């Protein structure tokens, strides 16, 4: 059926589709059915390549994919493939080239293809004749180019990667059978090629970049891929979100203390400070500032005062409990000690310490902070001991110090892929230290008067820290308890007397303790006036903190529920499709005749899916060589469907084993969904044996047409034909009757046929001839002389073992120049092979006698038949082809013995 009508409907006015042909495009071993049309506009031509539904009838059945202008740089070459000898009558394989772009097409056997190629060749010839005077401009293609631009670019990109290989192959294999291929090389053409190459390279880069990124339609689909680690993260997030479901609050007491010791050594017991609580605290977090004011401590970070104060602290802890030191951290004079009741140690983990200096030049350690973080049960706790900038008027500097400390203290996490943890990211933050905020806007006498009256409430309203916190410029989100003790700075060292130096500082609450977090209750907040070692007084706060403790059973329940939800989510995103049918039977499959069925795949799942037919284990392809699924892979949106054509086609490669009963038409296709199910499609077929693809020896034993005989008999004969011992009752015929019928037909009717063996026959007529030979239903062969001639060539091509068996191939090449030696080899062939060879050569000699009419000569006949009768088991290079031809030519020249055979012929 001519499908140019469908193409015509897609064209604009003034454009016409001269001829269209269905073909298979070959790209990186992917077969794709295409409809290709030769389109003409005025005097310009182009090839339009369409994807199509089966038997396109209207414009809606075809989709334009690519346009190839027929310009001077265009060419169509008939090529050999690695495993096929170019044979007139087989499917035609051509390579279409335009600039750097190449497309390999397989056109069906038949005169329609010949007509198509001749029209294309004529169009190209017209362009060449006018070159370089007139060059086509192809303005009329612009409107189509937008639509097909994507496909074109992609094809270019792919083509570019194979340019080198293709060019090498081209040099090896190309020969002009239907049209000339070679274009002249000149500067302008070379320039165009270079520009084209540059474009292609750019596109290749883009493709590589795109291809390297995983394309996932949604997050849930990533759950099934362990390499992303998404599943772990999702579980952790959900556990965090549902923390209330499996944790409960348990209260623990934390003793926080801060003491600026002004570089002094311990002189008195610290018990009045540290053991001031009625019951022993669970935790001690003790911070010191100005531990050591010496230059050595500043420059070398070493001080004997660290162990001295550490020992003093240890002695001062509450006597009613055993305590263990978990961590000590110091930066110059800023030190923090972390003690815990021994019984709690097993529940502490992830202990880290960090320091940051905010002193001289914003970095030195005379001011700054030290910090310890840890996890206790299910709560994250961070404790900061800071010494902020001094002097009354520097409150903004102190605010900045606070911000710097929050930003720059970063704890590394156990999981190195996670970013560092900052102070404010913790559930609970405990902040203590000499924060150095002062009382301002009051005269010293007024301050002391308020202190003597114990009017701390009024005095507190002049406190810088309170004011800055009220303005929310510092310690945002933090809480400080009510202050009901007198200012902790500045005293005469060794006394309770306010500073009597000439500076006569205004008293201030420099030493503070604050917290941030839930479930925190302060039990006491006080200074300790009895300690006189320093010009500061120590401060302590006892906090009762609610810690999140894990209930193991609840945790297990929550965890399992989360895992179940994730599994459910993942399973819901597994693709799923339905198939219209799962079993296909192909009835009465014949040699070289297509049969096709369609399976519709419908995406009825909840996600889009990619489908692909996949290889079964230990098989070279997803299906048997006689079977094709098209498309073999694709993408289906939700709710979408695709028709997949299943085609059965038995050719010369697959026919021999089917004829001999060694193979059956049986296969199971596995349709795989990416990250989803596999679906099995069963394919069965009944194959009608054919003389095409049967061996000469087996055919010689057949006395009836092959399809008239039971399959078992054919198989027995195939086995028997390999045996040298033959019973007299089964004496074989000298040559297969099928060969006789074809040659006899040609001898009777075609001796004077012009261009015999050089014109293609019709596919439909070949099918009739094949059926006639296989069933014996007619006395004479149907069809034209050219069709019968082509059938003979196809028969010889389909022999599993050629007329001159593979084992003789090398000998024939070795002695191709010695005529008598060649004849000697032929005399050694198996009997039926020798008979057929002699029969055919006698026939060809007879044809050559009528060269005046049929225009055949040795140079025409030899290449056609030599390659069929003497086939290489492997690839054949040019040199071998020449030798094969030389070998065969000896038998086309008549000798006296040949003349005798001819005279004995009954015709």
């Amino acid at each position: 059926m001519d499908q140019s009508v469908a193409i015509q409907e897609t064209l604009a006015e003034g454009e016409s589709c001269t001829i269209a042909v269905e073909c298979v495009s070959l790209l990186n071993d992917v077969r794709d059915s295409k409809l290709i049309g030769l389109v003409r506009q005025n005097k310009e031509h182009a090839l339009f390549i369409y994807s199509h539904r089966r038997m396109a009838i209207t414009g809606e059945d075809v989709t334009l994919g690519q346009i190839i202008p027929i310009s001077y740089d265009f060419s169509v070459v008939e090529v050999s493939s690695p495993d096929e000898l170019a044979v007139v009558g087989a499917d035609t394989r051509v390579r279409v080239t335009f600039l750097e772009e190449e497309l390999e097409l397989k056109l069906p056997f038949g005169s329609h293809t010949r007509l198509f190629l001749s029209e294309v060749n004529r169009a190209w010839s017209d362009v060449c004749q006018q070159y370089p005077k007139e060059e086509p401009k192809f303005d009329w293609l612009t409107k189509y180019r937008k639509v097909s631009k994507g496909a074109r670019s992609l094809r270019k990109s792919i083509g570019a990667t194979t340019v080198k290989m293709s060019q090498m192959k081209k040099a090896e294999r190309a020969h002009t059978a239907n049209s000339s291929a070679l274009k002249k090389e000149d500067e302008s053409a070379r320039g165009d090629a270079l520009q084209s190459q540059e474009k292609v390279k750019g596109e290749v880069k883009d493709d590589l970049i795109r291809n390297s990124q995983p394309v996932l339609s949604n997050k849930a689909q990533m759950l099934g891929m362990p390499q992303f680690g998404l599943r772990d993260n999702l579980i952790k997030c959900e556990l965090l979100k549902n923390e209330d479901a499996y944790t409960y609050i348990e209260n623990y007491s934390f003793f926080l203390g801060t003491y600026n010791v002004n570089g002094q050594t311990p002189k008195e017991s610290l018990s009045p400070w540290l053991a001031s609580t009625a019951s022993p605290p669970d935790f001690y977090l003790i911070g010191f500032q100005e531990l050591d004011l010496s230059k050595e401590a500043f420059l070398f970070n070493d001080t004997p005062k660290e162990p001295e104060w550490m020992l003093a602290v240890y002695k001062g802890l509450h006597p009613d409990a055993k305590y263990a030191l978990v961590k000590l951290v110091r930066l110059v004079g800023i030190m923090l000690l972390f003690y815990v009741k021994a019984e709690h140690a097993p529940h502490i983990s992830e202990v880290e310490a960090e320091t940051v200096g905010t002193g001289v030049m914003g970095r030195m350690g005379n001011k700054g902070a030290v910090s310890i973080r840890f996890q206790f049960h299910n709560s994250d706790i961070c404790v900061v001991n800071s010494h902020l900038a001094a002097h009354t008027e520097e409150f903004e500097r102190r605010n900045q110090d606070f911000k710097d400390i929050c930003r720059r203290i970063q704890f590394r996490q156990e999981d190195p892929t996670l970013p560092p943890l900052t102070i404010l990211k913790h559930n609970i933050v405990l902040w203590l230290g000499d924060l150095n905020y002062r009382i301002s806007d009051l005269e010293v006498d007024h301050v002391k008067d308020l202190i003597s009256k114990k009017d701390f409430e009024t005095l507190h309203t002049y406190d810088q820290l309170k004011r800055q916190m009220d303005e929310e410029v510092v310690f945002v989100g933090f809480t400080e308890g009510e202050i009901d003790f007198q200012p902790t700075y500045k005293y005469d060292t060794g006394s309770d007397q306010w500073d009597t130096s000439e500076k006569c500082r205004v008293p201030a609450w420099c030493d503070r303790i604050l917290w941030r977090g839930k479930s925190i209750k302060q039990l006491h907040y006080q200074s300790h006036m009895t300690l006189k070692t320093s010009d500061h007084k120590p401060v302590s706060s006892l906090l009762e903190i609610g810690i999140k403790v894990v209930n193991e059973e609840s945790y297990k329940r929550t965890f399992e529920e989360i895992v179940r939800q994730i599994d459910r989510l993942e399973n819901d995103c597994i693709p799923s499709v339905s198939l219209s049918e799962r079993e296909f039977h192909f009835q009465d499959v014949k040699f070289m005749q297509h049969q096709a069925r369609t399976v519709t795949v419908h995406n009825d799942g909840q996600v889009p899916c990619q489908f692909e037919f996949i290889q079964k284990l230990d098989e070279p392809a997803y299906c048997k060589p006689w079977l094709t699924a098209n498309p073999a892979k694709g993408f289906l949106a939700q709710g979408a469907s695709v028709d997949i054509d299943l085609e059965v086609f038995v050719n010369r490669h697959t026919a021999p084993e089917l004829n001999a009963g060694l193979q059956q038409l049986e296969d199971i296709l596995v349709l795989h969904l990416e990250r989803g199910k596999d679906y099995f499609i069963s394919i069965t077929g009944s194959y009608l044996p054919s003389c095409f693809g049967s061996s000469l020896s087996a055919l010689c034993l057949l006395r009836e047409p092959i399809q008239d005989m039971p399959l078992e008999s054919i198989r027995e004969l195939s086995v028997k034909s390999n045996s040298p011992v033959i019973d007299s009752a089964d004496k074989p015929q000298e040559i297969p009757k099928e060969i006789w019928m074809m040659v006899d037909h040609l001898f009777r009717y075609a001796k004077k046929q012009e261009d015999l063996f050089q014109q293609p026959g019709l596919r439909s007529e070949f099918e009739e001839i094949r059926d006639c030979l296989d069933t014996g239903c007619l006395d004479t062969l149907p069809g034209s002389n050219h069709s019968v001639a082509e059938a003979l060539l196809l028969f010889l091509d389909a022999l599993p073992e050629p007329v001159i068996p593979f084992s003789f191939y090398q000998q024939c090449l070795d002695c191709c120049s010695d005529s008598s030696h060649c004849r000697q080899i032929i005399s050694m062939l198996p009997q039926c092979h020798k008979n057929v060879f002699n029969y055919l050569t006698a026939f060809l000699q007879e044809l050559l006698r009528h060269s005046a009419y049929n225009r055949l000569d040795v140079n025409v006949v030899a290449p056609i038949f030599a390659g069929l009768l003497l086939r290489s088991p492997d690839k054949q290079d040019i040199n071998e082809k020449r030798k094969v031809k030389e070998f065969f030519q000896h038998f086309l020249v008549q000798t006296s013995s040949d003349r005798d055979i001819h005279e004995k012929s009954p015709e």
Partner: protein
Amino acid sequence: MSTRGTGRANGNLPQTKICQFKLVLLGDMAVGKSSLVLRFVKGQFDEFQETTIGAAFLAQSVCLDDTTVKFEIWDTAGQERYHSLAPMYYRGAQAAIVVFDITKPETFERAKAWVKELQRQASPNIVIALAGNKADLADKRLVEYEEAQTYAEDTGLLFMETSAKTAMNVNELFLAIAKKMPKTDTQNPTHAARHRGVNLQDPDAQSTRSCCGN
């Protein structure tokens, strides 16, 4: 101070370590392979389960004490004509459940053949469980429990009688397989070992000093 609860000894959340294994179901047609999977994964039973023509894939996790075992479950077609495709699914599998129907002795014979094939062609360390399904049809039993139990013990298999219909032993079967799976850390290299509390005996860990800060 309030009374202390009995919190976890190590004070930390359990490991979220996840091991992922490929598990394949094999057995004669209509023994209930798909029904077992449906019961385990979705908690459902379909009286009119369709014949599996292909291979169905589902994921389901089992939570052990300190590990989550995630099974990638391949439910295969049991019809004889698809037998040649089974290696696609059991090759590389770390676990297999070979299912037979206790009311049909021929399915038990077929299960034995599957076990032999697995032992010959599957991964050497594959964990194989034998499942005698349809235990709810005890009145029609034709394969004695002791016979299958003896065979399983002699062959080194896990064995349970199950009922996808009543959910009897379905979760238990997958749990038993999960417990038997080797759980090497190589499958989850990013999971570092967690601390179990703080080590108070290590003196180096206690003190951190620095001079000029960061």
